[in-house]
């Protein structure tokens, strides 16, 4: 494990760790074995950050969405908050599509599940951020979270200073939690067809609802349910949030927290594209009770047929399986 992390960071181009205003961000690290965050750190440049990462034991690496005058100050009040980027997180454990999905619960997502998350992410960006909020695609950065979802980071200068209430309004818009469905139902119920048409013709949520109702021939509530996103409010509202730093390694999966271009999001396959490429192999012993369902990681098709078997796989695949609790390191019999 240590080799996996150290080799990755040693060979990493420091530019891959770039985020704007690096010096103004707080960094946090959580070593896998410690469960205790090392916070209030700051780095003057990417080289210093890379050197520190090489010296660390396998750890989760976080940087703040906020910019501070003094990011390394130990007390939040003395950091001098300058503003925060807005981050929308799509995570399988927050999405209603995966409620009750045994495989998703165990932290593994199938290709279909990934496609659903990516579809939601594209909807967020195209239908809401760009179309409704008027944010340009160059102001949006997508990052695979390294585990079960994507972070969509919006960096628009004038949005940096927004307070929690303003951010809550944005999230409520995306999740339709401020949508007055009852008000619309009343219009429907009173057969005020013309009023309803006028209301539903306006750009934003109303026209989305109308399009959905027409295309899918569904009820108002069904249209809203289908369109509403499940953006994690806690993440988007937190002005001091630490989120996984781009191009770091997720210490719970060994996968790369990989930046993804919008145009290549649909073809991005996390269990392939976020694996650390290495020629080293690893022997692992698959557990007996593998969850039902099947998924692919690297070149390996994981299904119940592998239960209890010892297999040789690429090191990053083996580490992923071990960290997910699906395999144990195989012990050679002398």
């Amino acid at each position, binding site marked *: 494990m240590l080799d996996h992390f150290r080799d990755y960071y040693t060979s990493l181009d420091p530019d891959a760790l770039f985020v704007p205003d690096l010096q103004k961000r707080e960094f946090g690290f959580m070593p896998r074995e410690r469960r205790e965050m090392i916070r209030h750190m700051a780095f003057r440049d990417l080289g210093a950050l890379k050197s520190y990462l090489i010296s660390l034991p396998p750890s989760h690496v976080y940087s703040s969405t906020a910019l501070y005058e003094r990011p390394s100050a130990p007390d939040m009040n003395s950091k001098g908050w300058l503003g925060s980027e807005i981050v929308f997180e799509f995570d399988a454990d927050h999405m209603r599509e995966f409620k009750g999905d045994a495989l998703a619960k165990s932290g593994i997502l199938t290709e279909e599940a990934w496609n659903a998350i990516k579809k939601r992410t594209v909807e967020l960006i195209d239908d809401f951020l760009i179309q409704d909020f008027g944010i340009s695609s160059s102001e949006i950065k997508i990052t695979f979270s390294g585990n079960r979802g994507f972070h969509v980071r919006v960096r628009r200068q004038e*949005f940096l200073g*927004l307070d929690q209430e303003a951010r809550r309004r*944005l999230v409520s818009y995306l999740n339709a939690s401020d949508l007055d469905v009852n*008000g619309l139902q009343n219009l429907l119920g009173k057969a005020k067809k013309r009023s309803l048409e006028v209301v539903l013709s306006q750009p*934003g*949520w109303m026209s989305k609802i109308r399009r959905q109702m027409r295309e899918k021939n569904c009820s108002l509530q069904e249209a809203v349910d289908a369109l509403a996103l499940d953006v994690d409010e806690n993440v988007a*509202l937190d002005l001091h949030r630490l989120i996984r730093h781009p191009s770091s390694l997720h210490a719970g999966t060994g996968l790369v927290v990989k930046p993804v271009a919008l145009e290549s999001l649909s073809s991005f396959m996390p269990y392939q594209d976020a694996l650390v490429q290495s020629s080293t192999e690893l022997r692992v012993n698959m557990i007996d009770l593998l969850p039902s369902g099947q998924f692919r990681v690297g070149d390996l098709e994981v299904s119940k047929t592998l239960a209890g078997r010892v297999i040789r796989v690429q090191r990053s695949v083996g580490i992923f399986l071990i960290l997910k609790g699906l395999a144990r390191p195989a012990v050679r019999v002398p």
Partner: protein
Amino acid sequence: MSTAEALKKYPFLFTQGALPAGSLTNLGELRPLLPKALARSRQLLGLSLRRGLDPSQRKYSDEREMAALHALAFALVTATGNRRMIRAASWGFSKEVELSLMSDALHNPRGFPEIYIRVGKAAGIEAAFNWITQRFEMSLLSYLVLRGIEGDPKLMLPQLSLAGGKVAVPPNVFAAMVSRVLRYSLTMKLELQANELRRAELDPDVKAGAETLASEFSRRKGEEVDIQTLSPVESLFPPCVKFWVSEMRRGVNVPHQARFLVATFLLHLDYSVDEVLRFFSTTPDYDEGIARYQVEDLAGEKGSGKKYAVPRCDTLRTLGACTCREGLCVHMTHPLLYYRLSIERKLNGDKLAGSECAGSLSRLLHLARPRRPVCP
């Protein structure tokens, strides 16, 4: 619209409810205005039958007098130091403005956008009128920074036209938006003034006027929350929890955030799920099956198995569930901290323990409580 005309209908364009020069410690040349100002204060507080400016009061000798009268009327309300009255006056005034704007749109179809834009600007809303769509347009950012519109569904973003970062609203919605924003900013401003006035030696006539207003208001509007009905333990709850509990007991359909606060707070005090459910049983939409599941989920007995934390004060403020910003509450960061400190105060013989905002909780939350849309 000339300055004089604007001042007549929208005096806040010039004064924003500020105290008249010379302050209330010595009325000086403003003394003759006091009777008119008292009458105006009574209108704002809903103590006189007619809302809006009485035509007789439009016979001002000059613009300065109009502005001074407006400011003095609000100053009398703030001099009472009663937050409930301050909010009532702000509410009354913002309703007047909304009605005036609606009337302008009706009677001056060519000129009303200019008036709306000017009034909106004074309230802090930067907007332009699109003659083709007949809507007022503002940037998304301008909309996001507006305060005071929470809780009114028709002003929430999903109900509005939004494309390319531009929010567009019809005139009646814009008028409502201006009204809510004004109400909020005026309330904040007057509460601040009230705090400053507490330390000031008021002019005897102002003091007498304020006392008259306060006693009439109390007589006419009553007190909606009687903390005597609360058990000794409940009386030490933070004001927000007390307020929402009393609202639920009155059968009010309180917002989700308030229910979450009450439930998590009680669960952290080791109330059982059944005991918590008893608090919710008087809400109009109570369904025991659903409520039990939700409370058990909050208690960590269902769902994720995680016991939910009581929201912090800053979260409650953001969500509009905070109801008190005076006394101990000024320094509070968490409802449980308030409770612990109140117990300590009580044990130390402090009779005022847990009395923050008590007796004036009824109208504190125009902003937090969803209201019925206003009919023009």
